[in-house]
């Protein structure tokens, strides 16, 4: 006997998921929630803090540049 073709494998997977869709969806939602919570609790605050610190450094650099070079356009000086 030959192995099942791709279409048949897709169909049997689809049937299995369809028959037990509640469990399937519960697993997907659970792991989505875990990922979202982790991102919100750890990675997003870290990224925003990094961005804040970077902006602060770049801002102080711009101030220093303006002091050194008063010929910068007025818009930037403000």
């Amino acid at each position, binding site marked *: *006997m*030959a*192995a*099942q073709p*791709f279409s048949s*494998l*897709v169909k*049997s*997977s689809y049937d*299995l*998921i369809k*028959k*037990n869709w*509640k*469990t*399937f*969806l*519960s*697993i*997907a*939602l*659970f*792991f*989505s929630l*875990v*990922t*979202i919570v*982790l991102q919100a*609790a*750890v*990675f997003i605050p*870290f990224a925003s*803090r*990094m961005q804040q*610190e*970077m902006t*602060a*450094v*770049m801002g102080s*650099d711009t101030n220093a540049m303006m002091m050194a070079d008063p010929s910068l356009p007025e818009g930037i000086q403000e």
Partner: protein
Amino acid sequence: MGDPSQMGQVMLNVLKDSWPILLLGGLLMIIASLWAPAAGMLFGLQPKLSFVNLLKGSAKYILPLLGLSILIFFLSFGWLLFVGILLTTIAPIAVVLTFISSVLFLLFAPRYMIAPVLMMRSGKGMMESAKNAFAATKGYWGKIFGNIILLQVCFFVVLMGLQIVLSVLAAMAGDSAGMLQSLVQQVLGQVFGIAFAVFLVQLSGTIIANPKTA
């Protein structure tokens, strides 16, 4: 623009302050990324299990799956990549070794692909599962490779379609929809990941049932 060394210092300071939480978050992410396919494969093997029992049952495979992934990485192409990294000072050799390791990856990764399913199905160890997967997939490289690529293409097309619909809906809903869009994308990613695990179980089932002995 900020001075690169000053920016580097700022990055280092932020990392110094937050490395424990980042390390913990990273570890939890790794655990989740191993647990989700384990739950998907267990669902494919025993669809009648309840949600809680699936989570409990698949949790015990997190460490073995990590070990199996590392083992397969080294058995298939990792060893050569490692040599390539060691020889980075000799650039041409490193490039050649990286190329060869990519070829080895293509040759061996499909053969080991069903190893996690075999491990969960039989409860055998990492090494034995890897060996059994390699033996069982003899003559099936093309089928596994082709089926996986085909499935990925199908997923990609469906995801792109959904992405377009989501983008249109987000544009209609205004600013607040951006967050919702990224949440829906996360859920879709998990749905496709678990569907892939279920497909892998079906694929390994048909391969094991029809060994090519010649």
